[in-house]
């Protein structure tokens, strides 16, 4: 059977052509191709890992941002409350101080008014006594011009002294 007996020529050429093909592919094709397949597989694996990591990071970052926002909101509220408190305090203080200052002014004014009044009273008294003396002088001068009146006065004065004794 010709089919089952290998022909030498074909075996020879088969070896030769396989050797040539193997050499060409081994030298030029396979290292590049297998390296690329391996590298790409690795790249894809890394990419997937990276994406997962990135998503995790993103989730974490979002959570963190949320936290920071909450914190900020809390602080804002705190600050507002504090500001309110300080505001009332300042107003309170200012009011107190104003009241004190007003009281002081009032006291001083009172003091001055008192003094002024005393001075005025003194003045008035002096003036009034001067007037009175003046008037008395004038009156005495008028009444003592007539001798009858003068004797009458001496009599009355003597009477008075008698009565007392």
């Amino acid at each position, binding site marked *: 059977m010709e089919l089952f007996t290998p*022909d030498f020529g074909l*075996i020879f050429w088969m070896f030769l052509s*396989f050797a040539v093909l193997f050499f060409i*592919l081994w030298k030029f094709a396979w290292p*590049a191709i*297998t390296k690329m397949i391996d590298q790409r597989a690795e790249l894809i694996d890394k990419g997937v890992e990276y994406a997962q990591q990135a998503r995790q990071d993103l989730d974490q970052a979002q959570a963190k941002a949320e936290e920071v926002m909450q914190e900020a909101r809390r602080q804002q509220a705190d600050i507002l409350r504090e500001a309110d408190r300080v505001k009332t305090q300042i107003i309170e203080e200012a009011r107190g101080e104003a009241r004190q200052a007003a009281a002081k002014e009032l006291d001083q004014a009172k003091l001055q008014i008192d003094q002024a009044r005393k001075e005025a009273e003194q003045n008035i008294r002096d003036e009034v006594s001067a007037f009175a003396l003046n008037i008395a002088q004038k009156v005495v001068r008028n009444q003592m011009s007539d001798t009858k009146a003068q004797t009458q006065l001496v009599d009355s004065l003597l009477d008075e002294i008698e009565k007392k004794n």
Partner: protein
Amino acid sequence: MKRLTLIALLLISTLVSMSFPAAASTKGEDHGGEEKIDPKEIIFEHLGDRYGWEVPFCHHKSIPLPIIVFGSDGLHIFSSARVEHGKEYVDGGKIFRIAAEGDFKGKIVEIVDGEETRPFDISITKNVFALILTVIVVCLVLLPLRCYYRRKGYKAPRRWLGAVEALTAFIYDGVIKSTLKDKASKFAPYLLTVFYFIFVMNLMGLMVVFPGGANLTGNIAVTLVLAILTFLVTNIFGTKHYWKEIFWPDVPLWLKFPLPIMPIIEIFGVFTKPAALTVRLFANMMGGHMIVIVLTLLIFIFAQMGMAVAGGTAVISTMFSIFMLLIDVLVSFIQAYVFTMLSTIFISLAQENPHKEHGAAEAKH
């Protein structure tokens, strides 16, 4: 859509059925009168090797190929056209012709003293030429991929190159890497070359006309060489543990000491592996070719029984042979895949190290 395809198929097969009996009858006339078709002759002519490559639709012309022989007085190179149709060719006083019958039927012989002797023959026959074409095609398929990587780097190729890459990755990742693990890069070039070589040879064999049609992987010489290469790779790179398992396997002493039963079986196994590889690929591919040829021949055999029978046979046969050819496309891939896979397994079994004994035992079952 499916119905349309079916109608088209039927139409084509009817047309073919009309033309084939006519062709058959003209063929008969050429040879003068009622010549019986010898199916066995035709089948073996198509399955076997020959000098020159037949041209489609013209049985008597063929593309001449160089004949290279070492005759009784040295090297002779001449065109196969000179010895076509039983002609004798005289080259440097030596007479050559293609033997018409006898032990060397269909082969080139030298006439020495009226006797036919077989010279040392390394002619570029149809099969050898197909081999060279296969080498070129494989290079044309794979080298552009490398150029692409050099130009584009990590970018994944599209279309044709993408398909080639996907196929390569399928074999490399799915078969070679998963079996050989860290030793994959050492054996991948050989195994991938084997895969592409067989796959392209198989597919080229399915093409009916010129650049294809050679029954290469259905030729035992081709599969034998491939199996021998796997055998060599397996045993040359085999580990110490592999050889120990062959000559002194881990079995009860009585199985190996006075009478070395197990070593004999193991050594037998070393040689049956490549034999199985050879026969599996050879038989599968030759079977596929043979079925298609037989189905086609049925038309000519039935053509002698009248037009109606011939027509009916032609339709059925054509449809069957189209079906078989489609299956052969599948078989082409499967056989290339199986050959590569088995080669990988044989190589990996010879790469076992002692601590992997359990795994080796499992792989053998």
